[in-house]
């Protein structure tokens, strides 16, 4: 264990900077991406091509009055946005950005990240319930049932990976996939991997979109139906924290997908591995999140649950069995 005082401070500052920059500028990326998909420019006025827009938005949000309506549960109302941010930032402690850039290498990293994700879901429930607004309660209830339903196939897929690697340490999972894209967990049949691995990747990706409440699974914030769902009563930085928490959850989801399936910081041909490949991969995945959001309409709540219980769970269980069979045989 490293006893120098600089290491934790450097990592703390680094992670906070990474998280802060991402939370702010992912909003910019989303608006520009949405704009170009829709054949229009996104923000253009504030700064060159709107690069100062997140700063302008942040100043606007902070200058508004933090309104706490009458009839809400005082403590829970104020705590909910903070609880939405905490799991995402804390999860970054165990994510390996590269071979030697990782804040803390724990033996049970995977378990830690999923435990923290459940706290994030809890924050939505608190936010909705503490608002004392009919719309918010409906949306919080929908969101809880959605999150529970989608955690299950996600965890089953992760168990498949852990079974193949033999460890829950994210560093080791990534190290096992070094050396070229045929070693990555998404690629079937090399190194004794099951033939259904790409299916596992797709299931995991769909579940991360659903866990972070992004369209087409954004029942919780269905704009045209329930105004803003569980965020209706929040103004100013309460809303800002929920939005930042959502973007950070996306970043953590993309990081997890990369480490579990796409080889972490590995170059596709095994040449110049490093943290830059990790960043390229997570930003490609984040662009896919944005791309999916602006393409599809919203699903219905019962069709959403249908998708999870009747399609994703059977497929992921079959994947688990097939992967186990491959490990036994090869």
């Amino acid at each position, binding site marked *: 264990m490293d006893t120098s005082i600089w290491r934790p401070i450097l990592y703390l500052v680094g992670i906070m900077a990474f998280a802060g920059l991402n939370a702010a500028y992912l909003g910019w990326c989303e608006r520009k991406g949405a704009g170009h998909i829709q054949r229009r420019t996104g923000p253009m006025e504030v700064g060159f091509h709107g690069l100062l827009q997140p700063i302008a938005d942040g100043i606007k949000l902070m200058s508004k009055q933090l309104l706490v309506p009458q009839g809400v549960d005082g403590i829970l109302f104020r705590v909910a946005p903070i609880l939405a941010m905490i799991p995402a930032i804390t999860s970054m402690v165990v994510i390996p950005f590269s071979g030697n850039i990782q804040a803390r290498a724990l033996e049970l990293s995977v378990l830690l990240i999923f435990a923290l994700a459940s706290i994030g879901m809890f924050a939505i429930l608190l936010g909705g319930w503490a608002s004392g607004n009919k719309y918010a309660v409906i949306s919080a209830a929908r969101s809880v049932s959605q999150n529970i339903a989608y955690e299950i196939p996600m965890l089953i897929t992760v168990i498949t990976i852990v079974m193949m690697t033999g460890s829950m340490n994210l560093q080791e999972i990534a190290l096992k996939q070094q050396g070229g894209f045929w070693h990555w967990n998404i690629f079937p049949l090399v190194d004794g991997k099951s033939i259904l691995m790409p299916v596992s990747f797709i299931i995991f990706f769909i579940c991360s979109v659903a866990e972070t409440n992004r369209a087409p699974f954004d029942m919780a914030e269905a704009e045209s139906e329930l105004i803003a769902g569980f965020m209706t009563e929040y103004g100013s930085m309460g809303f800002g924290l929920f939005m930042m928490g959502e973007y950070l959850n996306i970043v953590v989801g993309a990081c997890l997908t990369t480490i579990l399936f796409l080889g972490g910081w590995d170059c596709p041909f095994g040449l110049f591995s490093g943290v830059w490949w990790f960043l390229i991969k997570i930003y490609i995945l984040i662009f896919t999140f944005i791309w999916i959001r602006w*393409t599809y309409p919203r699903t219905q709540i019962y069709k959403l649950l249908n998708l999870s219980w009747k399609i994703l769970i059977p497929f992921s269980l079959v994947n688990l069995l097939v992967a186990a069979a491959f490990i036994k045989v090869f």
Partner: protein
Amino acid sequence: MTVPIACRPDETFVLNLGPQHPATHGVLRVKLTMDGEYIVKAEPVLGYIHRMHEKMAEAGNFAQFMPNTARMDYLHALAFNHGYALTVERAAGIEVPERAEYIRVITVELNRIASHLLWWAAFVLDLGGFTPLLYAFDDREIILDLLERVTGSRLTYCYFRFGGVYNDIDDEFIEGTLAFIKRLRSRMPRIYHDLVTHNIILRKRLEGIGIITPEQCRKYGATGPVLRGSGVSYDIRKNEPYSVYPEFDFEIPVYHECDSMARYMVRMDEMEQSMRIIEQALERLPEGPVKAKVPKILKPPAGDYYAAVETARGSFGCRLVCDGGKAPYRLKLRSPTFSNLSLFGEVAEGMLLADALGFMGSLDLVIPEIDR
């Protein structure tokens, strides 16, 4: 999906889909009594935008009412212009020159395509897809530019006059229209059908939702795509023809599944049929005057006259009671959306809230037309 209500009557709560809501297109208030997510009773409350158009007709002379017709259903304003002009022409016995009739048909059908494009964009927006709105508006802007070149307005057209139209069309308009039809036909299969119509998420949201039987349609007097999506083939342009529609070769799309998807497909097919009508009309466009000679102050003989036209939403009827004076004695306007909306109370019972909003979108409501 309708289910019987499982809770006691006093466990329901009242939700106001208030006058200000992103999904009701206009100021419509619906009082919903809900049991959890299911609707027990739905009651539309109207009148938030009643502007007394029918009374305004009695206060001025016949020609002064023309701008009002465009303000009722602003999305298919030319058809409403047409309906009123047709009624007064029947009352006063005015003959419209042939070129004017052809220009009327071309502009009304272009406006119908624009109205259906906006309906499609807003419908998919309500369901959560934000991008198709922008793609549809890209095409709609071209129509609006074409019509602006001819009439001078982009939305609330006051272009038709008794005996013809206000001014003539030119070659640039004809070329522009043909180019637009070619462009829309090439974009339809990919951007309209592949991206949205065949999308599994949208199909699962629309198929089987909002079943309206033909008997219910007849009971409430529903017309337009709502009626044709329930299997009844009735279109004023074919069943009670007016203007020069009998000269064109077009079909009426009819679907028998009676659900929201059927109404969606009826409107998509209607866009294609409108394009066919415009092409045929442009080919056969005759030369001649565009406006007949009409006295400045019209005094039709006393009597009771009625004319109906087919708008994008249904059959717009105009009943004129004249007493020989300069102003109408009574002008009654029959709004198609009013009859379509009255179906909502009966069909929405037992639906989920999100399904009810999809159903409302498939009815294609324009509230100022209901309230006049």
